[in-house]
């Protein structure tokens, strides 16, 4: 399935229904509490990661908030 992840087009394995939660695992997001997720421009609440099923051409943005030192 083709998805646009952080502005880049990517093909993601879709042998079964792909939830946002599963995408976080596939993309190796180790600490989901450190990321805010937008799906097609809308923020998704963390409680809905399991139930939110992705579809072809969905635009997913991972916005991390653990920046750098000084």
């Amino acid at each position, binding site marked *: 399935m083709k998805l646009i992840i952080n502005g880049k087009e990517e093909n993601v394995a879709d042998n079964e229904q792909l939830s946002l939660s599963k995408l976080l695992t596939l993309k190796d997001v180790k600490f989901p509490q*450190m*990321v805010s997720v937008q799906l097609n421009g809308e923020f998704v609440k963390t409680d809905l990661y399991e139930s939110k099923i992705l579809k072809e051409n969905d635009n997913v943005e991972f*916005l991390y*908030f653990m920046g750098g030192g000084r």
Partner: protein
Amino acid sequence: MTFTKKSALVHPMILDQFGSAVPPLYKATSFAHDAESVSDIFSSKKAGFVYTRIGNPTVMLLESQINRLEDGIGTVAFSSGMAAISAVSMLLCSSKKEILASSSIFGGTYSLFINILSHYGVKTVFFNSTDELKRIISDDTAFIFAETIGNPSMKVTDIEELASIKKDVPLVVDATVTPYIFNGKSRGADIVVYSATKMLSGHGRAVGGAVVDCGNYDWANLRYKTSFANYSDLGQMAFLATLRQLYLADLGGCMSPETAESILTGMETLALRVKESCENAEFLAAFFEEKGLNVNYPKFSSYRQTARRQFNGYYGSILTIDLGSREKAFKFVDSLKLPLDMPNLCDTRTMAIHAASTIGSMLSEKEKAASGITSGLVRISVGIEDKYDLKNDFSNALSKAKIQ
């Protein structure tokens, strides 16, 4: 498959290339990556650790464990409970705003609100009941603050009741003395704060704190837009991002990796310790009641029903007894063999302390009276020793102090 919290506490989600069975201790202050990765991490395009003041793998593991315990959307660890409360207060407040706080809160928090935040134009108003809170809540309210069990007042705040009337004001709950038996998210709290030094750790070897965002509050509320600065566009994560990136990173109250590892060790036995401490406290409170002493423990007070509902059948591990005078209280405390006379709470060791001359010593006489701190009040934080050993020890001390 979802596991119970009791199991989750024993099995942190360890990510380690060598398969370490226990949380690895990453002592590094900084983390190296290739140039593009560092750039991406700095610009928030990629997750990663770069500097321990902002994030560290061992500290993150502790944050993750506390977050699992609370069912939160994210947790940030701090160097102490007071650092955690200070950061939350400064984030949510601005000049001319008001904090509405439950009466008889912990002395350190009281001092933060009255002696420090007032200096920046923040006023704190204390409330004794939900009816009173209803009357004083306004557009100027920055947040509502309450403790699950007041210390040493033993006042149990009905968090669900507060949540039902708080309107669109965030409810910050200090659950330091009731982890595992109280779940802030399900009771309607927006933010839960902890001194991790106490029950979470339990072993008396680490000072730390934590802030959990329960995910109940809609941070899109415009009243906080300016507080969130560059992070206001992060939706549900705006509070956590601001807390970490500004109020942890720039105020600097970060937890050390060594402390995080130590608290993680304590948390493995949290479920067992909480249960044992609470059961021992119930047993001792009943013993003091039978002796005819003036005991203050939620099971035997007007807060019984609220406590039982809110703490899943438990009543906490702290109680107070009023021995009538400072002299009798001193003699009693000094006669104890097992309990230690020291200012901490919710340790494996039982502790007994004369309140007025120690934890309440910074309060005026009027404030002491309002907090229920009488001249003979002894606070007892009950540990996990054998309950009959404790009962015999307390009984001997009462005899030596000529109280019974």
